[in-house]
């Protein structure tokens, strides 16, 4: 194969479905990849699985697959996704069943497991990143531990002829690197010589695709400065990658959005921290020499990426029960709105103090005035037309968390004049911390189902 065409069908758990369907239909794709797992998503999915042993995968899985499967089968496009979240096997069963319902027979659906390392790490004195304590100190609050797998198990599934590959926690760019390694026969670390530069280039291509619409003009528009045509019909990206790792980003003609050096630069640098050391399980990629060139309308070429040897350990994301958060909000408008909103905050603070609510942190703020910048924001003397007061606090029980919102809603009859539009919530927090494991301790497995 001279070039591989990879489309990005989702950039996060709740992403839109129509652009993926459009890509499956008209994209002439070799691969369609859906990236749907954020840091916390697996932990939340793990809790869902504890409640229901058949749950724990992405809630839009069936909708997404129903929207793209027939076209992908017709065009010979292979699907790769981490929508398996905490339960890739159940997700694979769902897709196989759906395929049968659609009259698609013989579809090979692979589930990649082995990222769930909870049993492996529980109670161990593993150091936690950015913290003084160890994993053992979290005790029984730990609900999940998932290692970031690299591209290798996906490559193995593709080699076995999978039409759909469903994973749990895999590093985002690895979902996209896998088809390149598979199609071009790029060497991987198990082999005698490894071309780290090529793995770096493939990882950069994956990084550009992993947030879907964020490279084609999504999350970019600033009216008058950065205008994006037809944002409502934003198209998702396609990468055309050659065997030497060089890559071009584009999108479907007729779809909304735009692909320019500006949109691609924003995504290339997105969340990479040190651009010279972008670490994945597959490689340490170096974006510091990256060059972008507009090679056509909505077409940008990436070059200058290198790579070096991959990290010896795999990052493990640990989810743990971390207390509760209670919140309440209420709006004020008209003359003197912000003064009444501030009075509302003071009253709630006083009442929480009087009733002795133990909270380990509280926030009293005015949306529209100081909720983002807080104290150091730009001073603006303009009185807002409307303002929303918000109280939030961390507590050790759900009952105490509920009392925070309760004190806000009680402002209806017991607060300043003219408050309205109360919303209150209380929920458990699943905290996330990271640790590292030697990669030898982790073994990925592939289960192949057929429709």
């Amino acid at each position, binding site marked *: 194969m001279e070039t591989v065409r990879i489309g990005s069908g989702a950039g996060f758990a709740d992403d839109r479905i129509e652009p993926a369907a459009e890509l499956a239909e008209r994209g002439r794709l070799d691969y369609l990849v859906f990236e749907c797992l954020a840091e916390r998503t697996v932990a939340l999915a793990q809790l869902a699985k504890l409640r229901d042993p058949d749950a724990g995968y992405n809630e839009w899985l069936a909708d997404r697959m129903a929207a793209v499967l027939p076209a992908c089968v017709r065009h010979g496009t292979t699907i790769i996704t981490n929508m398996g979240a905490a339960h890739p096997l159940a997700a694979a069963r769902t897709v196989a069943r759906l395929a049968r319902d659609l009259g698609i027979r013989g579809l090979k659906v692979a589930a990649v497991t082995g990222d769930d390392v909870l049993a492996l790490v529980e109670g161990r004195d593993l150091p936690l990143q*950015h913290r003084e304590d160890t994993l053992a100190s979290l005790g029984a609050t730990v609900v999940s531990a998932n290692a970031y797998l690299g591209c290798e198990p996906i490559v193995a599934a593709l080699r076995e002829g999978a039409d759909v590959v469903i994973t749990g926690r895999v590093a985002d760019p690895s979902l996209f690197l896998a088809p390149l390694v598979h199609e071009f026969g790029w060497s991987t670390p198990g082999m005698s010589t490894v071309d780290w530069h090529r793995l770096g280039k493939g990882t950069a291509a994956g990084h550009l695709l992993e947030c879907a619409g964020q490279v084609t003009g999504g999350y970019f528009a600033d009216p008058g400065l950065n205008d994006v045509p037809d944002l409502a019909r934003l198209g998702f990206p396609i990468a055309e990658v050659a065997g030497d790792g060089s890559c071009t980003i584009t999108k479907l003609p007729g779809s909304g959005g735009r692909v320019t050096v500006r949109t691609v630069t924003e995504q290339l640098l997105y*969340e990479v921290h040190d*651009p010279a050391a972008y670490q994945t399980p597959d490689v340490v990629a170096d974006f510091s020499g990256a060059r972008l060139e507009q090679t056509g309308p909505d077409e940008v070429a990436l070059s200058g990426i290198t790579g070096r040897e991959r990290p010896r350990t795999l990052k493990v994301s640990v989810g743990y029960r971390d207390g509760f958060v209670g919140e309440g909000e209420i709006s004020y408008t008209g003359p003197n709105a912000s003064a009444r909103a501030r009075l509302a905050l003071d009253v709630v603070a006083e009442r929480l103090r009087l009733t002795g609510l133990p909270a380990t942190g509280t926030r009293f703020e005015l949306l529209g005035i100081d909720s*983002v910048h807080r104290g150091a924001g730009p001073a603006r003397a303009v009185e807002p037309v409307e303002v929303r007061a918000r109280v939030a606090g961390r507590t050790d029980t759900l009952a105490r968390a509920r009392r925070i919102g309760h004190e806000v809603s009680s402002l209806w009859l017991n607060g300043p004049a003219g408050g309205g539009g109360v919303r209150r919530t209380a929920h458990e927090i699943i905290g*996330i911390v990271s640790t590292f494991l030697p990669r030898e301790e982790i073994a990925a497995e592939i289960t192949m189902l057929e429709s």
Partner: protein
Amino acid sequence: MKLHDLAHARAGDKGDISDLSVIAYRPGDYPFLCEHLTAERVRRHFADIVRGRVDRYELPQLYALKFVLHDALDGGVTRTLNLDAHGKTLSSALLEIDLPEHPEDDRR
């Protein structure tokens, strides 16, 4: 002059770290940004938000600066009390920074 006149920005997050990219609209403005948009200037702008250090990385061929703000998200997306748990709005908040007027400005 606001940074918003010269550059566009995007925010991301990992744990308690906020990761801000600033990209000059015009290559000619990049040296000016390098001079005035220092890590210290960004730290001061977010004095009530960032508790840790601010690292700056330069990408001259992309006319971009990358700022990594440590201990910036009140514990990170999972446990923060911030309404904007990911700190996504910090990109636009950064573009509020006041910069001195500079000669390049006359051409616009």
